[in-house]
Structure formats: structure tokens, C-alpha cells
């Protein structure tokens, strides 16, 4: 009986703590919305195994915010509220609900991975809050499953089919490839998406896919599938994954005597990639660091000065998403998500990667750059559109 009382007290404490917490949260919201504040939520994996992606995005957003005069845009103070989704769709959903209903944000920058962005986009649409995802490439982020547009949702990166199509075209026309092999992470929608489109378009263009093999995201040893590919001697090896995985694959591929040209997507754009292993490989990217446009040169310099390393594609797109949002706030001089949505839909902006505007599905219209890793440097090859 004594024990029961103890337990009852424990339960009561937990419940009252929860209620108190929710009460506090509301009080905070009440005090700050009185002033001219626009709240911007950032959803990114800030802990867990892809923390480094999330940190890059957050660095990009932080840099954009730090460039505002006194942290203000017109009459509005910009308040950024970062949150951690651990790359887990459930946590991203919880966090988006928190940002929208408790912090009352006007806009969300995020999430980083498509599997987190899809549920967040549904909530953003439902509560009519603007959302710009910097890096989620799945088509379902801006479209619902019936193909209807979620009109509060935008992205600043390419969609999966776009990069796959361009890569296939580049392989066929510029590299004169006849055969290709594809390696992809079967648990990662980004690489599954790119690889499927590449395979389809490459075969449609008259090429032959000699091998299509998958691995899982925790693998480090690819020798079995690479040994299987080696005797087929493909002209091109398509590796549409993030930099940390392709570094390992490329190195082992060369060890297995695979001579193919490596080809990949924007996940390759990172100073942490193993440039020696990637030597000679091409990838589709948003911009080239060699691009003489002042926006690009400026951006690389600023980022280097602040964080001591070159920006990767996550940081660049995080910055770009913030740029787009801030321009919309500036032109409308408002924090109303509906006004911001209309502004972005009709916007043309000299953003960091290119001059971009948005199509009817909320995707950016911008050319794709083909970049080559050559002698530990990124070399611009050409611009392409599908």
C-alpha cells in the first residue's frame, strides 16, 4: 500500500510536469508574438548518424541569418528555432507539430532527408505554414500521392528524376558510354530514386545496364558486388549516394580493377569526399565553385571564413533556402505564410547557385552543372538541362 502511494505521487509528478511544460510553452509564445517577430523553424538531423548533414544545413541558414542587419528584415526580427529530428520521420512529425502549434512559426526550413520532409510537408500544408526544404529530392515532398500540389511547400534542390535524366544523357552523349553499372542503397529513397531514373533513361537512350546492385547504408565492404561487376567491364559506374559512401565504394572499385568512369549526383559535393579515390569522376551539381558569378565566389569565401571549411551541398542549399525565404519576407514585408507562398511562387531570385524561379510543382528551375573531380579539385565541365 505504501508503495502504491509512492507510485501515485510519481505518476502525478510526471503528469503535472507535462502539463506545466505545455503551459510554459504557450506563455512564451504569447509574449513574443506581440512584437514584430517572424519565427522560422529549422528541422534537421542535429544528432544521430547523419548529424553532419543537418549541421551543414543549419550552418548555411545561420550564415544567412547573420547577414541580416541586426537580425531584422524590414520591420521584422527574424527568430530561428532549430530542432533535431534524428533523421526519424516520427520525430520530424512531432517536431513540426511543435514548431507550428506551439512556437507558431511562419515558415519551416527543412527537413533534410526526404523521409522526414514528406510528413512535415503534410503538416505544413494542413496548417498552412510555408515550408522550404533545402535538400529533399523525393517528388512526394511537394506533391501528395494523387499528384496534387501541396502549395505551401517548396524546395531549392533538384528532384530525383531530374538528376538521373541528366546523368544518363551525359553518360550517353558526352562520355559515349555503351554500358553502365549502377550501385545504390536500397534503404535510401534518394539513391533508389536517382538510380531508377538513370537506369530507365540510359536504356531508353540505347545504352545497356550490365549490373544493378544494392547495399545497405551501414555497409563498408562492397567487394562482393564490385567483384561481380568487374568482369562485366562497364564504361560508367553510376554511384548516386552521399559523399561518405561513394568515397568507400570508389576506392574499393579501383582496388578491384574497375576502370569505369564514376558518375554521381549532388550528394558528392563535399570537402569530406575522398578526392583521390574519386579522381576523374563526374557528378551533377547545383553550381560550380569556379563559377565567376559573385554570389558563388562570395558564398564560398564567407563560409570558409566562418566555419573553416568549404561548403558542401547541404550548406549551400540551406543558405539558398534561407535566401529565398528572406527575399519573400522582404518583398511582402509580412510574415503571413500565404503571402510568402505567393511571393515565392512568382519569384525570380539571384540565389547562390543560380538565378532561380519556381515551377508549378514548387521545384526550382535552374540549370544543372556537371562537375569533375580532377587532381583533388572540382573542375566545371558544362551546364545541362534535361
Amino acid at each position: 500500500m505504501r508503495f502504491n502511494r509512492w507510485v501515485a505521487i510519481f505518476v502525478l509528478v510526471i503528469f503535472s510536469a507535462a502539463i506545466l511544460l505545455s503551459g510554459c510553452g504557450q506563455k512564451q509564445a504569447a509574449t513574443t508574438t506581440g512584437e514584430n517577430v517572424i519565427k522560422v523553424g529549422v528541422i534537421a538531423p542535429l544528432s544521430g548518424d547523419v548529424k553532419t548533414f543537418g549541421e551543414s544545413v543549419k550552418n548555411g541558414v545561420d550564415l544567412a541569418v547573420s547577414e541580416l542587419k541586426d537580425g531584422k528584415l524590414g520591420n521584422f526580427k527574424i527568430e530561428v528555432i532549430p530542432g533535431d529530428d534524428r533523421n526519424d520521420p516520427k520525430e520530424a512529425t512531432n517536431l513540426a507539430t511543435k514548431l507550428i502549434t506551439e512556437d507558431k512559426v511562419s515558415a519551416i526550413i527543412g527537413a533534410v532527408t526526404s523521409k522526414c520532409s514528406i510528413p512535415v510537408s503534410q503538416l505544413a500544408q494542413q496548417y498552412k505554414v510555408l515550408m522550404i526544404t533545402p535538400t529533399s529530392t523525393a517528388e512526394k515532398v511537394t506533391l501528395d500521392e494523387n499528384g496534387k500540389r501541396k502549395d505551401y511547400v517548396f524546395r531549392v534542390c533538384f528532384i530525383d528524376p531530374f538528376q538521373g535524366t541528366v546523368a544518363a544523357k551525359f553518360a550517353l552523349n558526352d562520355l559515349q558510354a555503351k554500358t553502365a553499372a549502377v550501385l545504390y542503397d536500397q534503404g535510401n529513397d534518394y539513391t533508389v530514386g536517382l538510380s531508377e531514373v538513370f537506369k530507365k533513361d540510359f536504356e531508353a537512350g540505347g545504352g545497356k545496364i550490365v549490373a544493378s546492385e544494392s547495399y545497405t547504408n551501414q555497409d563498408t565492404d562492397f567487394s562482393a558486388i564490385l567483384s561481380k561487376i568487374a568482369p562485366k567491364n562497364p564504361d560508367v559506374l553510376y554511384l548516386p549516394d552521399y559523399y561518405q559512401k561513394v568515397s568507400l565504394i570508389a576506392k574499393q572499385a579501383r582496388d578491384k580493377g574497375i576502370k569505369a568512369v564514376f558518375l554521381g549526383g549532388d550528394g558528392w559535393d563535399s570537402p569530406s569526399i575522398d578526392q583521390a579515390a574519386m579522381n576523374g569522376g563526374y557528378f551533377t551539381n547545383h553550381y560550380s565553385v569556379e563559377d565567376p558569378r559573385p554570389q558563388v565566389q562570395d558564398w564560398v569565401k564567407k563560409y570558409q571564413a566562418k566555419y573553416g571549411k568549404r561548403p558542401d551541398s547541404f550548406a549551400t542549399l540551406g543558405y539558398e533556402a534561407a535566401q529565398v525565404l528572406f527575399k519573400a519576407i522582404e518583398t511582402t514585408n509580412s510574415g503571413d505564410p500565404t503571402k510568402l507562398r505567393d511571393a515565392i511562387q512568382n519569384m525570380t531570385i539571384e540565389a547562390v547557385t543560380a538565378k532561380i524561379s519556381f515551377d508549378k510543382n514548387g521545384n526550382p528551375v535552374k540549370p544543372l552543372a556537371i562537375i569533375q573531380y580532377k587532381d583533388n579539385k572540382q573542375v566545371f565541365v558544362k551546364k545541362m538541362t534535361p
Partner: protein
Amino acid sequence: MFQKTNKMLLMVIGAVVLYVLLKIMITTGVINPYWQRVLFYSLIVTIGALGLGIIYGFTGQFSLGHAAFVGLGAYSAGYFSKTFGQYGGLSFIGALLVGMVFAGLMGFLIGVPVLRLKSDYLGIATLGFGFIVKVALDNADKIIPELGGARGMVGTPQVANLEWLFFTALIVIVLTRNFIFSTYGRACTSIREDETAADMIGVNTFKTKLMAFTFGCALAGLGGGLYAHTYPFICPGDFYFLQSFDYLIVVVLGGLGSMTGTVVTAIGWAFLLEGLRFVLGPQFVDFRGVIYALILIITILVRRQGIFGGKEFGFLVPQVRREKPDAALRG
């Protein structure tokens, strides 16, 4: 007899009062949609964890693949809802039943061979089953495109609300209680304490283990079904081995063989993870994982029997009680 009805009455009144309280707080906005979502998630975890509680806490069968059954339930229920979603509440009940039956059936099928294994070996076999399910779900779109494979499944109707979750959880708690204090439940406990001895006194150990495992997996499937109707997106990564560890952590921290412990810990656990966001604030977002790990270690060091250590709230225990169930746990 009089006391028994008293207890049932107490429980019913308590549940109704709690429900009304929650309902009022939600309608008046004291609990905003965010905390509401956390509450819903905590109830889902409760249901799933009660399933593992039966398998591990009461029957002593070490399972490291519980999240896989939650996933099977979520996917089958979600698929059912997407296909027959036009009948409203009826199709939701159908979906939950489908999730429950499918996960239970898979539990039964995998249980028949692997339940012959003991302790850690059983753990590894169920862990392996978890991996198999992950691979199957990753490639499921090649057979049924609606499941989405690695790209995840969207479009499940978001129909779960307080009534559904609260009363389902309540029914599950009552069902679990009745099971545990039935002859079968006693048989389960006897297997946990000593399988050989249980065999000697005439318990059909294999059948009992299989029944407990199937029941536990069915509850996992039910939790999964609710999950699919509370969260707008499900993907295979949601039901990986690390999620199985989460359920294990809840059951063990709650105290093996304590339903009360499982329920309270499941709710506390869900609120802890979200509450840490507020405690840490935006400056220390990346400390969440570290603090969580520390809380985990400290809790188990302080309460090695789990928070409730085999004890129950009085109203969850039927009157006749011969022996304290936690006596042998200390061994």
C-alpha cells in the same frame, strides 16, 4: 466478490475521469496539438510495449525483433486503410484488426521454429527476423507498389484521435491483465521462472510460449496499425532494430513482469524524449542523445529491478493472489 466489483468499478471510474480530463484539456487547448501528438505516441508505445511485456516480462522469451512486428502491423493496416478507406470508422477497425492479425500470424509462424531457442540465442534469431522484415519492406514496392518500398508509404488516413487511442489502450490493458492473471498467464510466469519445473508440473511449455508470443506480436501489430493512422508517413527505417531496443528499454525500465511499470514507463519515455527539447533549448539540441543515454544508465543503476520491479497498481490486480510475482526475479 464485493471487493472485486469494487475494483472494477474503481478502474472504470478512473478511466472515465481520466478521459474526460484529457478531453477537456484538449478541447480547451491546455494540451495543444503538439502535446496531443506526444500523448498519442506514448499510448502507441504503451500498446506495443505491453506486447513485449507479455513476451519478455511475463514469459521470459527474449525478443529483439519487436519493432519488426510493429512494422508489419503498420504496413498491413495502412495498406488495408488505403484500399478500403472509404468506410470511415468501420474500415479503421478493419485496418486495426488486419494489422493485429497479420502481425500475430507472422509472430506465430516465426515463433513455431524459433521459440525452441533459449535466451540470447532467441534474441539473435528474432533480431535476424527484424533484418529480414526490413529487407522485405525495403523491396515491397516491387510486388505491391502502394507500399512504397524504401520511399515509404504515404496516404494512410489520419483518423486516430484521443477516443480511439485512449480506449484501445484501455482495452489492451484490461485484456493483458486478464491474460496475465488467467491460467495461461500463470503458466507463462511459471515458464519465466523455470521452464523445466513448469514442464514438470504439466504446463505445455511450447504451446504456452507460442501463445504468449503470438499475443504479444498481435499487440505490436495493433500498435503499428494505430501508428500508421497517427503519423502520415511510414517507412521501413521506422521499424529497425534500434526501435526494437526502444521497446526493450521501456519494458525493462518499467520492471519485468509489471504491467503498471510498462504503461507508466512507456508514457514517461515518450514524454522524456520530447521534453528534453524544452529542457535543453536551441543551444544544446545536439546534447539530447547524450542526456537520454545518461538518464537510461542512471535509472537502471538506481532501480535495477526496473522502476516498478514486478509490482502492480492495486486496481490492476484481481483479488486472489497467492504469491508475489517478483520473488524469483531477484535471483
